[in-house]
Structures are given as C-alpha cells and as structure tokens.
C-alpha cells in the first residue's frame, strides 16, 4: 500500500509541471502583454523605449526559459511573486477571493450531496417507474439550465414576489454570518442543483449495479431488515464512485464559477481569473491556474488512494 501511495504521489509531479508549462506558454501566445494593456488603458502614446524599460522592470525582457526557471524556483520556496498588474503580492490578491470561492464551493457541494444521494438511491430502487423518471427529469433539468440564467430568474423572483433582494456586497462569514449566508445561499443552491445531476446519475447506476450482487441476495435471504441492507450493504459499496464524482466536481467549482460569480456579483476566483487574463497579468494567471489544477490533482490522488485502500486489486497493477 505504501509503495502504491508513493508511486501515485510522484505521478502528480509531472502533471503539475505539465500544467505549469502549458499555462506559461499559453499566456505568451496571447497577443499583447501587461505593459501594452496598461498604457492603452491610460490612453497615452508612448515610445517603444519606455515600453521596453517597463518590460525590463517586470523581467519580461529575459529569455523565456529564464522566466520559467525564475517562476519555478520561486514556487519551490512557496513564493508566488507579485501581480504584474497591481504589484501586490499574489497571496494577498488571492486570499480573500479564495475564502469566498472555497465557501461557495463547499456550500454548493453540500447542496449537491444532499440532493444526489437520496434521489439516486430512490431512483435506483424504483428503476423505470414514474419515480425514477421524475428524479431523472429533475436532475437533467438542473444540468440543462445555465446557472447564470437560473441566477437571473432567482433574483427576479425575489424582486417580484417578495420585493426583496439578497445582499449584493460580500461580507466575510466571521464578520456577519447572517449577511454572509443570505448572499451565498442562492448561488450555492443554483450551482448545487446543477452539480447534483452527475452525482445523482452516478448514485443511481452504482446502486443498480450493487443491488444485483450476490451478497445482497444473501442478506435478503437471511431475512435482514431491508433498510439495514440498503444502508449497510448496498449504499456503503455504491458510495465510492459517488464520492469520486463529488470530489472532482468540488475541485472544478473552486475556479470554474466564472459565470455564476458574474450574475451574483461575487468577487471570487473565477472573476479574478477573467480580470487577470484580460490584463495579461502573467504571474497572477499562472498562480491561479496552478492553484486550481493542484486542488484537482490532489482530489484525484486522494480518491485513487481511497480506491486502492478499499480494493486491494488496484494496488498490484
């Protein structure tokens, strides 16, 4: 087991380096750089010489491989550098927005889990009856509705029915929990519904498979209480793929809520990413992508280890 974990852990490194190389090159392919964007924004005419001096200040005159090595060496010392646009340390830029995105992702994941597991189990037990159909239509409808449209509908609904609007300015949870929740519950519901769809489908098919296993028939033949069989025998074994799906979705939510953040006026990582890429802020974009990719790869690693722990056959492959 230990050997498997070490081997699997080491496999994370080339993937992370690959992500770093890809985003590094991708950004340099985008036309324009941060210096040009800034001077255009200020509406000034400047000579090439001034642009070159500014570039030299940011280290953009260095050869590509040198810039990459500098970035990597900094990362090894947990130094993300400073934002090319604002000049502030990247950890400062990310901190508050990461807190917001993390809270929203956790809440949305909670919503998705609470919806998916009961619905998936019910749909599996009543396969191909109207209950199954209703559950599937409900979850596919969640998957089909663009979250930004659902957001607009929600806000509109509050306005027309209750003459009330959720707070539009972010307050950290530790400052005013009520204000914080009143704002974040709605996007969490909208996103959670959407992300419950895949997990519901996974729960349903995993349960269908498990319910056909011999040990379930044995348990029933023994005359065990049906609810006990469902929870102890069936659900426990069906849950592993479901947890994988939920874990991976959580990783996506962290940086992928670009559009939802726009509608609910949330200043999270997704919006920061759009801004960073529009400013050609290389250092900030690189740090963001690497952060999100790292969470994704880490979740992947943890689920693989969990699988190997449960199923010894995987370790030997």
């Amino acid at each position, binding site marked *: 087991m230990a050997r498997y974990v070490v081997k699997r852990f080491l496999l994370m490194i080339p993937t992370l380096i*690959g*992500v770093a190389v890809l985003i590094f090159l991708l950004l340099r392919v985008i036309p324009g750089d941060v210096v040009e964007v800034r001077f255009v924004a200020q509406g000034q005419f400047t000579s090439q010489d001034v642009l070159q001096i500014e570039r030299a200040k940011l280290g953009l005159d260095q050869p590509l491989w040198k810039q990459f090595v500098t970035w990597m060496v900094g990362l090894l010392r947990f130094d993300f550098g400073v934002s090319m646009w604002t000049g502030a340390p990247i950890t400062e830029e990310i901190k508050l927005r990461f807190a917001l995105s993390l809270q929203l992702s956790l809440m949305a994941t909670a919503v998705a889990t609470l919806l998916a597991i009961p619905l998936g189990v019910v749909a599996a037990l009543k396969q191909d009856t109207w209950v199954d159909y209703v559950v599937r*239509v409900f979850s596919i409808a969640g998957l089909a509705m663009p979250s930004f449209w659902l957001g607009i509908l929600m806000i509109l609904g509050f306005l027309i029915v209750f003459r009330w609007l959720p707070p539009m300015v972010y307050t950290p949870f530790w400052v005013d929990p009520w204000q914080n929740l009143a704002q974040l519950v709605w996007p969490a519901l909208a996103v959670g519904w959407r992300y419950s769809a895949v997990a519901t489908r996974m729960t349903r098919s995993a349960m269908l*498979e498990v319910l056909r296993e011999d040990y379930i028939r044995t348990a029933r033949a023994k005359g065990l209480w049906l609810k006990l069989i469902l929870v102890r025998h069936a659900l426990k074994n069906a849950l592993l793929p479901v947890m994988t799906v939920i874990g991976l979705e959580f990783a996506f939510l962290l940086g*992928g809520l670009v559009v939802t953040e726009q509608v609910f006026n949330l200043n999270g990582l997704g919006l920061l990413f759009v801004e960073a890429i529009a400013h050609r802020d290389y250092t900030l974009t690189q740090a963001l992508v690497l952060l999100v990719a790292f969470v994704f*790869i880490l979740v992947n690693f943890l689920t693989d280890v969990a699988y190997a722990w449960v199923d010894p056959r995987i370790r030997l492959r």
Partner: protein
Amino acid sequence: MAVGDPTVAVLEQAPARRGRRWLAAVGEFCRERPLGAVGGALIVVMVLVAVLAGWLAPYDPLATDYGAMFSPPGARHWLGTDAFGRDGLSRIVYGSRTALFVGLGASFIGGTLGLVLGVASAYFGGRTDLLLERVMDVLLAFPLIILALAVVVILGTGAVNVMLAIAIPMLPRCARVVRSSALAIRELPYVDAARAAGFGHARIIFRHMLPNVMAPYLIMLTAFLGQAILLEASLSFLGLGVQEPVAAWGLMLRGAAVEFAETAPWMGLFPGLAISLAVFAFNLFGDSLRDALDPRLRIQ
C-alpha cells in the same frame, strides 16, 4: 444478367430490410425509454427549426425597429423585442442555428480527435500510452471554462473559434473513456490475428478497433453536445463567444437583458428557456442512449 437471378433479388431486398431493422430498433428504444424518445423528439424539432429558420421566423433577426424597442410579448411580437427593437422570436429561431453549429462542430471535433488519440494510446501501449495519458491529465486538470476562455483569448471570438475553444477541453474526456474500452479490445484474438496477417498499424486502428469503440464514442458525443451548447452560451454571455449582431442565445442574455430584467423580463426569460430546452433534450437523449448501449444497466 438474367431477370430472376437470385443474387440480384437478394441485393435489392437488402436495403429495405436494413431500413426495417433500423425502424424496429428506433421503435424499441422509444417503447423502453420514453424519456429518451421525448429528448429525441425535441432534438428533431430543434433541427427542423434551425433548417427552416428562414420560413419560420416572422422577422429578419437582425432588423432593428426603433419604434418598437422593449415591446412586451403581444400579437405583433410574440416574444417581445429587445433594446434595438429586434424581434425576440426571430432571434431565438435563428439562434438555434448558432447553437447547433457550434454544438455539433465542437463535440464532433473534440470527440473524434479524442477517439483517435484514445484508441492509438491503448493500441500502442507502453511509452506512447504513458506520454499521451500524462498530456490528457494536464488538459483535464485545467477547469473546462478556463481552458475555453484562454483559447478564445488566443484565437479571438467568433463562432468557429468558439467551436475550437470548446472542442479542446472535450478532447481528453473522450480520449479517457475510449481508451479504457479500447484496452479491452486490444486483447481480443481478432486484433492479434490482424497483426499476424501483417496489417499496418493504421489499418488495424481504423478498420478493426475504431468500429468496436463506437458505442462509448457515440455516448460521449451526445453528452458533449448539450455541454457544448451550454458552454457556447456561457462564453457568449461573458462577451467572449459569438459576437453581435449574430443571433445567439447566450448573447441575448447579455447586457440589456440583465439591466432591464425587472421592467422587460421577457428579454432574459425566453432565450434562457431555449438554451435549457435544447440542453435538456440532448442530455435526456444521451442519458437514455447510454442506458440502452451499456449492457450492465439493461433492464433485467
């Protein structure tokens, strides 16, 4: 050739019989999977609307009418008009063309490249497989919308570029699924036989392996279609997708539709409904198709 030659008779019958077999399969699918049939019917309607857009739309989708800005739904404009007085219904009808074009194009390009790479990865194995798998890992670790965003910024906006931007994040997802199916097929005797017969790699991959991974490929393709339509709408909504004045659903939800959501809710309501219905149809159909093609989940 003499009249009444038995081979000719058989040859003439074959297409008809195949047609009947297809009909029977479709009939069985509809009976056993009513939800999938509903999705399929909605897709057919959507395709018809896109093809017959010129006939169905009451107005030119680009024609502005400054005398009728922000008109609510009524007899003249069934679904109201937007900030430029353009007819909502006509723009939604023409928008189905954009959605289908980008959706079909993106999922076909992404899915097919993924199919070829997935099969090649499984067939060659060893170092090629390891290398391709790591590349796919890297692409997968990028959040879908962020990768699409970056590609759009590099290539520029517009329908074709958006199509490519959506295709790239879909590629590794299809490659993954196809590879795992292809791994099982590689071990089967007929692939060994083909190799022993001295066929080239390309021939074995295209003639012997590809046809046998069509089921997962088709499943991924239909699953992508809905996602691609949704991604196109999201990118257009962010201003990074299809550009004005082209009729596209995501674009209709942008700007004035949000600003005037309270006074002119029809502007945001109907395009969103169109997106939801389209994606819903493709997902419903894809879902049932997966059930029908996956033998483990067959009704027992």
